[in-house]
């Protein structure tokens, strides 16, 4: 070893991400441009923070383990911004090592952007390696391979062969170790494959959960997760890893959160809330707390109204819920970053009735509730209900964007349909 050094390991930048699943409350709910811009820019802001981190920690090099771009063809903007940021590192002579993953695989042609010589994109043909030199002496050797196309079913880990003379061998790979079900099983491999390889550090990408340490030491096998959440499901703080390699070749890893926008989902119960004013106060308080705990980054918060209560029927009126959301934004959001933006207000409340009890009665509603429950056991009935949805789901235009419901989704819809039947048929409703 030629003395200690530090490097930064990031993955899954998904530059220019589409941010699937962002919800407006309704068509009339228009979002201000500063919010949209902050979200659109968030992956780039995070990239800038990663580069700042590299400079700040005087890291020897930067690793990006795949899915640099959201789209394989890579938006022009994404590539130009990546280049601009990496130029900052190049100016200090800091090299960057990048492999492409399933999202930004090499199967399509990307615009010819010229990157600085210090930026190394690994080939998709076979594992390549680059030495990292400091004052003419090699301090580490980075091995990596990019995806030639989206679906890679081969265990790439087995292709990685360490050279005996490499002072500190790093494997840069976009893969699914152990078949994590929430992500596609690309470049599947087992942890044992990585441990047996003789490498000193496995810089992995593909799994978005923040800071997944599969093996702590000798070698450290780590997924840093995506540094910026891509949709409201990817909640909480995200970032990348700063790895410090000591003189003895032992590495210590520090996870540094640096996402620009944090996604949050906050359920707020209406239990015990007597009126809309009280509920408004409760929501303001929830948003206020989020504001207090997030002074460094913007938060897009999805508020879910849950529970049973007398407010259910009030909230079922579209304008009431929208007014709540609108007033909440009026009172909590200022046009300054970081901000807390209440994304939407999902009304998931239930009517204040005991459905089990209602199902016991010989009333029409009782029959309806029993029927809805019967669906789970009666494939014929289920089929009948599913068929009733086909007019929309198989519609020649709508069908392109809407998928058929899996069982869980169907049960959820049925539950809401039951609630709706109760709302519409019980006393008090118009």
């Amino acid at each position, binding site marked *: 070893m030629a003395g200690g050094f530090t490097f930064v390991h990031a993955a899954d930048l998904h530059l220019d991400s589409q941010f699937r699943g*962002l919800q407006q409350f309704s068509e009339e709910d228009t979002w201000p441009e500063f919010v949209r811009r902050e979200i659109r820019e968030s992956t780039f802001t995070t990239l800038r923070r990663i580069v700042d981190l590299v400079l700040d920690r005087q890291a020897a090099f930067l690793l990006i383990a795949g899915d640099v771009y959201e789209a394989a063809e890579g938006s022009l903007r994404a590539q130009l911004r990546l280049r601009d940021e990496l130029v900052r590192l190049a100016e200090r002579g800091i090299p960057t090592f990048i492999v492409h993953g399933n999202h930004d695989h090499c199967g399509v042609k990307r615009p010819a952007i010229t990157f600085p010589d210090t930026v190394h994109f690994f080939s998709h043909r076979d594992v390549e390696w680059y030495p990292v030199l400091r004052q003419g002496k090699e301090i580490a050797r980075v091995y990596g391979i990019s995806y030639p196309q989206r679906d890679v079913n081969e265990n790439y880990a087995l292709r990685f062969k360490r050279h005996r003379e490499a002072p500190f061998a790093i494997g840069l790979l976009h893969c699914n170790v152990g078949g994590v079900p929430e992500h596609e099983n690309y470049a599947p491999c087992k942890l044992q494959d990585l441990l047996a390889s003789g490498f000193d550090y496995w810089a992995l990408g593909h799994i978005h959960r923040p800071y997944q340490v599969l093996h702590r030491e000798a070698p450290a096998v780590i997924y840093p997760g995506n540094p910026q959440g891509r949709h409201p499901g990817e909640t909480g703080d995200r970032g990348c890893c700063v790895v410090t390699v000591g003189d003895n070749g032992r590495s210590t890893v520090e996870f540094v959160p640096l996402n620009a926008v944090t996604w949050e989902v906050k359920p707020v119960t209406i239990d015990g809330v007597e009126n809309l004013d009280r509920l408004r106060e409760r929501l303001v308080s929830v948003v206020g707390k989020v504001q207090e705990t997030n002074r460094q980054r913007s938060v897009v918060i999805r508020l879910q109204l849950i529970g049973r209560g007398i407010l259910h029927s009030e909230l079922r009126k579209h304008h009431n819920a929208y007014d709540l959301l609108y007033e909440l934004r009026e009172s909590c959001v200022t046009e300054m970053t970081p901000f807390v933006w209440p994304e939407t207000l999902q009304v998931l409340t239930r009517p204040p009735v005991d459905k089990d009890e209602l199902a016991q009665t010989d009333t029409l*509603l009782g029959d309806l509730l029993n029927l809805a429950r019967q669906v789970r056991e009666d494939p014929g009935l289920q089929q009948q209900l599913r068929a009733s949805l086909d007019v929309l789901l198989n519609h020649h235009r709508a069908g392109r964007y809407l998928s058929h419901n899996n069982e869980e989704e169907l049960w959820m819809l049925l539950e809401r349909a039951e609630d709706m039947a109760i709302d519409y048929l019980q006393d008090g409703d118009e």
Partner: protein
Amino acid sequence: MRIKELYVDGFNILHDLVLSESDFRTNLTVFYGPNEAGKSTLMAFIRALFFGFNLKDEPAAEPLRGGRSGGHMVLEDEEGLTYRIERRQTGTKKGRVRLVLPDGTKRDESYLRNNILRGVTPLVFRNVFAFDVDELRRLEELRNEEVSAHVWGATTGLEAGKFSNALRKLNREMDDLFKPRGSKSRINKLLKEINALEEDIRRLRRQPGEYDFLQEQVRRLQKQREDLIAQKRKIEKRRGWLQGLLEARRIWIDLQDVRSQLEEIPEVAEFPEFGIERLDSLNERQRELNDEYRKKADELKVLTEKLNKLVIDEKILNHRLEIEQLEEERRLFVGRRDSLAKLAAETKRAAAAYEEEKARLGPGWTDEKVAAVDLSVAVAQQVQDFKSRLAGQDSVVSTSYNEWQNAQMTLEDKDREWKEAKRALETHVVPEAPTGVPLAERVNILNDITNAYHRLELVKIERNSGQQRLNDLQRQRRSMETPVSGMPKLFTGAVVILLVLSTMAAFLADPLFGGIFLVVDAAAAGLALRYRRQVKDRQVRQEEERRALDIKIREMENQLEDLASEEKDLCRRIKQGAAALVGRDELPQDELDGIRRALEDEKQAHQVRANLEQAVHKAEQALEGARTRVTEAEKRWRRAREEYEQLHREWEQWLERQGLPVTLDPTGALHFLDAVQKARDRYREWQRAREAEKEVREQVQGYLSRVNKVLANLGRPVAAVETAADRVISLRDDLRRGEEASQEYARLEEEIVKEKAALKRQEDKIRQVEEEKMRLMRAGGAEDEETFRHRAINYARRETLIKQRAELERQLQFIAGTPGDRERMKRELAQSSYPENEGELTRLNEEMAEIDDKYSAIGEQIGSLKNELERMEAGDDLAAKMLEKEMKLSLLKQVAEEWQVRQLCRTLLDLAREKHERERQPVVIQRASTYIRPLTSGTYRQVIAPVGQTDLLEVEDGSGRRVSVSDLSRGAASQLYLAVRLALAREYASMVSLPIILDDVLVDFDPVRLQGALGLLGKLAAEHQILMFTCHKHILEALRDTEVEFGLVELG
């Protein structure tokens, strides 16, 4: 509840109709009569009693055949309690109702509505309890919520109309959300927007490819531009060459010409440079030198003549130094000479001034004495010192004198004050005391006497009142000595006897009277006994009071004795006091105030005297003090005066020592010293003036003697003081003239020597020029000047042509560039012509213009492509559109879920309804099903009511076939509705039971079904009062054919 009695006073065509209890004996009562007999009116009257007159669709309430509008009805409930409902036409439209409860309480409309009718509205009553054949068939009324709620309410658990409203609402909402072929629903709109966004995104997605394409284009265009630049350079080079050719052709022709000229002139191998010019120049030089030689010889001649003419005065030149010295001092001499008179006058004036100052000091002051006075600062300081000391001591003397005078005046004041105080004391008189008892003691005695008098008065008053009280008590005691009077025993006995006798007499006369008397006797005896007991009690009480009075009297007597002895003591105290106070045995109370005033005056006088004595004492002390102060002040003054005199003697001695007049005081001494100073100053001034005058006079005389010495040496006459200056001027002028002549002589001598040397040099120069001319001609290969000149012309001509040739060659090279190019150019010039070159140049210019146009077009293309590339690099349109699309997709999913929830809800509702209709027909419909069989003689077995659609009733026949109401015959439909309405009436019975009134509803029934219907009504009547109106005899007959028990009321 059933109708027990009914009375119509006046209602439409009904008047004074009485239906008594016997008419309603049975639960089924048939009202039979022809048309217009009043059957329907009677039903209307019953409705009016319940709900008011003038209801919609009811006959007018106004009596047409007499009577007061209104009437009453008696209802009987299940427990036999009766309620009387009376309604009269009043101002209000509905009329005024009076409800009499079983206990006689009277109530109003609201009680009737809430407690008797239990919320049954006129509509429900007309639908369920009292209807005619038209109303029976009015299908839509069954749809009414109030009614249909009863059909379904119990089993669906829903409010009336809920179900259909829910379905309508769901359908409406779903239409708002999505229509498969629509464009305005939310989902359809969203789809449209998403499509548009996708189109934009597709376009923007093509950007990377476009970007590459554009970059490639830029590169291609840049290459083209470079090619054009190369081409341009080539043309420019050729064009430059051609322009050179055109420019060089003239030069080239000249060069050819020069060459041919050179060949014609004979060659002169060498010739001195500038030979002709040099020859000309030497000739010219030779001429000039000769002219100059002649001129100089003339000048030498003139100079020699001038020298010979000059005369010089040597004598005066020998005295040059003295004369110059005298001339230098001449102006000073004149000044001194002229100032002599003024200086003499000044000396005189200063002497007089001095004498004047000296005289001021007094007689006997000589110059020496004046000079001897000491005028130093120390002396002046000593004078100042004496001055201040004398002034200080003088002030001490006058101050102490003033103090002595003041003390004397104070002494006089104090003496006066002492005398006045003594006089005041002597004149003050203190009154004489009546006794020898001291004043303070007498004051105490007076107070004691005053108190004794006050106490004496109180004692007297107490004694008088005590005496009176004693008298009263004694009087009271005496009055108690009389005993209490009882009833005289004799009188009692007499009465008893009288009573006994009268009783006996009465018995004898009539036992009744005897009895009466006996009763009277007994009463009298009772009264007498009671009276005796009261008298005895009074006597005991009197004895107790008497004893108490005796005690009080004794106490009072003791008290009076005490008071008498106190009075005596007081008189003694007064007497003793009077002796001490006024020296008398007695002192009446009215004198007390006078004595008090006298004592006050005495006290006052003593106080004044004491004050006066104190004042005299104080004045004496002050007087003594003043005397002491006068003595001390006088001492101080005398001491101060002595000190002053001593100081003054010292001063006089000091003056003497200083040689100053002893009469001077310090201020005067200071003035005198100033005067001495002035005199001394004047003396010094006079001495200075005298010395100045003497000095000037000596200088004037010295100058004059020096002048006369020089004049004597030169042999000239002697000068006086007044002429000395002029004579010096004349000497000066003569000296200057002599010097000038001497200088001119020396100069001329020097010039003549110089001129001679110059003439010699000129001769040498002329000779040198001649030699040089000879050398030049030899160098030009000529022996004479003419040959030389001819050879020079040929040589110069050749030289010029050679230079021209070289210059033309140089110009050609300048145009062509390198020597090689020049040779190439010469060749090309020889091979081509001017028009050929010009033609080619024009062609090239045209080509060049074309290339320039192409070049700028390509530049513009590159610029616009680069702009496009920059725009693509900077733009985030794609990201914005993608975000927009994702948000729309989310919204689409959200809205799609809304639709799916509603769709599922609707499907579930349909399924539930189907199940409900199949499995849970409402009780009403179930009951109607049991009625439909007898009503349709078994044709139909079941009535079916689809949920929420009570107007779409269906019947099912024995084979299970369902027939909807619209497909039934008029009669069968009537039977179906009668079944439903009767079932409803039964349903209502659980809440409120009202009589059922059927106004000829069985007219459509065939005989068989009529029989069935009447049988059914008979059965129902067991639990429900039914009033059946008919004008059809066959119905009455049919009823009679049944075993149903009924009452009959014939109307009309």
